[in-house]
């Protein structure tokens, strides 16, 4: 029976006056009917102010002239910011870079996370130790690790080139990782992968441990070895979590900002390379908004990116479902 249907207790013998009874009644009503809403109100109020409002107001800003350096330049711009977007080479370049880095980071990240989760999904000595160990990159501040990787991928004294030279590559002409699109994308994708593999591995591990044991027993009749077991039983069984991580890394990957920012030799400019080789959309939004002071145009880019994320996340979820369930 529901608490709200409880009648208030009859006035106690110590305080039999009618006014005290009324007060208790009022208090009881307040406590059961209003207090629950007061408890959840902070979330909704704060989300409305700092989450929902900016997202909607962003659409308004994107339809206006809005400059940080010139308060007089204001007024409705109509679709001007959006039509400018369509012909802006920087935007398309950034979109291309974002997708390139996104694919190079998401695919290896999730596959390696699956393999590590599969390793962790054994009876191990020091279970907690191994699980905590794979989280080292996750707790490392992305600014700190990216600055380290920026040095790792130096041309002359960088460790990446040293490793390459050990296996016989580029001893004469060390690779300039920042010079080309493909090499800078690989460098940035490496940073993203390093950071998120362990985290995703724990998500997968958690789902793997929820698989009922008899599923494996049934499959053992067909003689499935550990490898086939992984790809034919485990992975299809954890498909919902795989879809979840694909959507999560789509949302995160398409907004990639920190790594490309700090990979630059002079991060403050937000150039994404001398020729924007690796400038992502989130970085371009920052540059347009806070280096060129054009908030209206930056807002239009944000909305475009929002729509792109929605579409891509939906497509990826569908693809994963088909790909994972078909086998």
């Amino acid at each position, binding site marked *: 029976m529901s608490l709200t249907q409880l009648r208030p207790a009859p006035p106690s013998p110590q305080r039999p006056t009618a006014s005290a009874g009324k007060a208790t009644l009022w208090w009881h009503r307040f406590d059961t009917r209003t207090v629950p809403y007061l408890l959840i109100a902070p979330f909704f109020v704060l989300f409305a102010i700092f*989450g929902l409002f*900016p997202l909607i107001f962003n659409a308004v800003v994107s339809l206006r002239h809005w400059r940080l350096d010139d308060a007089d330049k204001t007024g409705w711009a109509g679709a001007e910011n959006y039509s400018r977007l369509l012909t802006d080479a920087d935007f398309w370049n950034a979109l291309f870079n974002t997708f390139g880095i996104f694919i190079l980071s998401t695919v290896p990240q999730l596959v390696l996370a699956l393999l590590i989760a599969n390793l962790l999904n054994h009876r191990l000595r020091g279970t907690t130790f191994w699980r905590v160990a794979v989280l080292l990159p*996750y707790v490392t501040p992305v600014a700190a690790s990216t600055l380290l990787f920026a040095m790792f991928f130096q041309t002359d004294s960088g460790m990446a080139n040293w490793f390459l030279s050990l296996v016989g590559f580029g001893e004469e002409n060390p690779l300039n990782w920042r010079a080309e699109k493909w090499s800078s994308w690989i460098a940035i994708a490496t940073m993203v992968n390093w950071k998120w593999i362990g985290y995703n591995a724990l998500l997968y*591990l958690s789902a793997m441990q929820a698989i009922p044991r008899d599923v494996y027993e049934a499959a053992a009749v067909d003689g499935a070895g550990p490898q086939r077991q992984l790809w034919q039983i485990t992975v299809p069984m954890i498909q919902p979590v795989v879809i979840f991580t694909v959507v999560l890394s789509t949302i995160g990957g398409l907004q990639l900002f920190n790594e490309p920012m700090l990979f630059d030799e002079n991060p403050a400019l937000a150039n994404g390379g001398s020729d924007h080789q690796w400038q992502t959309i989130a970085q371009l939004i920052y540059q347009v908004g806070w280096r060129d002071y054009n908030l209206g145009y930056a807002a239009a880019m*944000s909305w475009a990116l929002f729509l792109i994320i929605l579409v891509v996340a939906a497509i990826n979820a569908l693809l994963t479902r088909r790909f994972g369930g078909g086998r």
Partner: protein
Amino acid sequence: MSVVTSRAPQDTRGTWKTYLSLSVALLLSAFPLYWMFVIATSTDAALGKYPPVLIPSDQFMVNLREVFTLQNVYFAASLINSVIVATVVTASTLFFCSLAGFAFAKLRFKGRNPLMFVVILTLTVPNQLGVVALYILMGKLQWNGTLIAVIAPGLVSAFGVFYMRQFIDHAVPGELVEASRIDGASTMRVYWSIVLPAIRPALAVLGLLTFVATWNEFQWPLITLGGTEYPTSMVALSDLASGNFVIYRRVLAGAFVATVPLLLLLVLGGRQIVRGIMEGAVK
């Protein structure tokens, strides 16, 4: 041809191959952190060497002093700012999320389920995309360039509400709540003396996850605090690395200092952090 395994992997003992592969993974996770320390302790001359140095040197204090005394970077202040921001955000998140989680799990009120659905829905909103408007809003409030601009949006989180609701639903018996209400305990009394003691583990988990995430935030702090005298440590690091000539031993000494608090948290609360991530995944 292949080995027949009748057991689920989680019941199978790891072989030496399992341990070897995990050790490689551990090495790859930990090496960048070790190398960060190596660079933070080296001289410029050592860093110019090829092949790269792999052993720490003794210049850590020298490099550190340079970082802390550098003009226009405000590194010492930035560490304090980060502690303030992360602590306030964590405390507030724990308070508001446990209250809301309690209401959603144990109290009956009209619209409870639809409202919970809205909370879950907001988890998927990429709020980074509202930064332009958020900046304008903070400008109207005159909060840009102050720590409040970084603290306010983080005071409560959808994930926290969701996580707390799940935990309280399991950890707090409904009969206990009803019984104490019949005894005349108010809602807040129930929260204080029944719910709070039962959810300490969940508070630890959510607290650690929130602290780590807040400490590491970069984009929004950079936008609102960049170029001011009140950076967070992540923004100060980016300032340290900006300019025409980057001195890596300095940058990475700073990076190392800003990383140490989180490594300590991982050592002390690793079990809880693992638990939080794994529990958040299943539901």
